[in-house]
């Protein structure tokens, strides 16, 4: 704040993007809005829009949340997500502190890393549950219900989860449908439980029955690509390097066309208080990775061999390389 000449900043969170607020005040609020005010001298005040949140946190309540904002704050983290009526209440157009706060959040503290390790452990156990209960005849949403129940039973606050099932016709993941699993299906998932505010992720593919030659061949490519990035990641390399390492494997095998936006989204991303933190792992992102950052590398994409396939682990960047935080076996799961 001193560097920027800011006397005070606001950190805003809403029900979708709680992360700017929780980066200062790690309270899992259940109402619509929360706001923290931090002065340069370190004083913090907190306001909630929901009376239950305010009572639990012994904090100020402001049901008419426009009144929580007033002219005077130097900058706001989460400004971009704020409703315009809140921004207008701040007086002259406020400065965004979002990028600065996100940069501070990228390198995790020891306590944050501990929470992410707990989330990784839960992701591993959640995936184990996923494999245990998935079977032909079950519907996608029923499997998600089982996994969600397991994660909540074991302390997850939330969970970001996508799923898909089928064969070469599957081009991406989405929320679960009523589709029933069939023998031979690839069942893919991104599982991302949240513990004490922090997300960790695992991506795996399960084949129901004996995998086909094409599914095995596809998985070998995904595994080689993910390992190439994991072997490379250390402080000083860029997000682009990590993406290129994965995409080059697909190119080597003749599948370079499937590394672009038509068939995939990103080759990974950072993790923390939001499940899809920046920088994304993409060939045009030159952000230099640092010790203490937590990333997932996942070469998830569509291939004509197998349909959409996923494979990825959460990595903690260490002084000289990285540590894989997931313990789940790196293989194509079959059942």
């Amino acid at each position, binding site marked *: 704040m001193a560097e920027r000449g800011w006397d005070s900043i606001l950190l805003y969170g*809403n*029900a*979708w993007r709680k992360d700017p607020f929780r980066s200062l005040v790690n309270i*899992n609020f*259940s109402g619509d809005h929360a706001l923290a005010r931090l002065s340069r001298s370190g004083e913090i005040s907190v306001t909630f829009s929901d*009376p*239950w*949140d305010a*009572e*639990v946190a012994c904090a100020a309540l402001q049901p008419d949340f426009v009144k929580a904002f007033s002219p005077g704050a130097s900058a706001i983290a989460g*400004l*971009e*997500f*704020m*409703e*315009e*009526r809140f*921004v*207008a209440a701040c007086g002259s157009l406020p400065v965004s502190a979002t990028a600065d706060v996100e940069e501070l959040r990228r390198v995790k503290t020891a306590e944050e890393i501990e929470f992410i390790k707990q989330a990784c452990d839960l992701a591993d156990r959640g995936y184990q549950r996923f494999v245990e209960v998935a079977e032909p005849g079950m519907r996608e*949403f*029923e499997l*998600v*219900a*089982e996994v*969600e*129940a*397991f994660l*909540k*039973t*074991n*302390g997850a*606050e*939330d*969970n*970001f*989860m*996508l799923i898909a099932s089928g064969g070469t016709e599957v*081009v*991406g993941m*989405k*929320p*679960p*449908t*009523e589709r029933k699993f069939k023998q031979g299906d690839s069942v893919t998932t991104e599982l991302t439980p949240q513990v004490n505010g922090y997300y960790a992720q695992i991506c795996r593919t399960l084949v129901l029955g004996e995998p086909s030659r094409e599914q095995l061949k596809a998985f070998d490519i995904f595994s080689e690509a993910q390992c190439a990035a994991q072997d490379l990641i250390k402080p000083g390399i860029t997000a682009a390097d990590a993406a290129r390492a994965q995409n080059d494997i697909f190119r080597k095998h003749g599948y370079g066309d499937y590394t672009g*936006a*038509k*068939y995939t*989204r990103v080759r990974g991303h950072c993790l923390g208080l939001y*499940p899809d933190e920046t920088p994304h792992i993409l060939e045009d992102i030159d952000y230099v990775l640092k010790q203490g950052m937590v990333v997932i590398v996942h070469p998830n994409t*569509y291939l004509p061999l197998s349909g*959409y396939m996923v494979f990825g682990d959460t990595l903690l960047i260490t002084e000289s390389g990285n540590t894989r935080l997931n313990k789940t076996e790196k293989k194509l799961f079959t059942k």
Partner: protein
Amino acid sequence: MKRGLITWDKAELPPSVFEARLARARAALTEHDLPALLVYSDVWRSTEGRHLTNYMPYWNRSLIVIPREQPPVLLCGLSPRVYPWIKSVTIFEEIRPASKLVPTLLQLCAERGWTQLGVLDLPRLPHEVFLPLGASNVEAYDVKLDLTDDAELAMQRRAAEMAREILTVELPKGVGLTDYQFSGLLELACRRAGAEDLVLLFGTNDSAPRPARGVMLGDKYSVAVALEYRGHWARVTQSLPL
């Protein structure tokens, strides 16, 4: 993130319901002499867009554009790979990729010759959408709509019934469990029954209801279940002893 069952049962919500809702929106546009209505939608702010089109951005954000005299258009932050699924659960026939929402919107306005837009609840537009829209050559006007109709109320009633029925059966099972464990029971029952999303809060020892945090529930507790059924939320709170 929505990870429950997002679907469109046309027997439950016939296309005619959405046609009537769009007709109301278009009547408001006619009243204000505006060519199109903009509706912002994200994973949390989905109610208005869902009411008009059955669209739910399970992740990411979108803009819904309802022209006065043409079919609605979805400007979608999600990948085109999921457009077939989106089309299967919404009224949309035209979906445009929009990793940058406002530039895509302005392109659409330019194509159609629109210099004005109605915006549903303009003061609640996120700043990052409001700012570039305000700086453009398209004038935005606040439009209010009454989003209540019989179909909406019937769906909310169904959501409330589902929450109440499940809570009545499950509530006594929380005795001797932690709030985490009881959350698991409720998640399983509600999501198996087709709940799209769920927010569970637990009250013990006269405290305000709060998210689970690993405490024992004892034999006297309350549970507030906010349940979303096919885009329609209801909150039911029950206490033990009943």
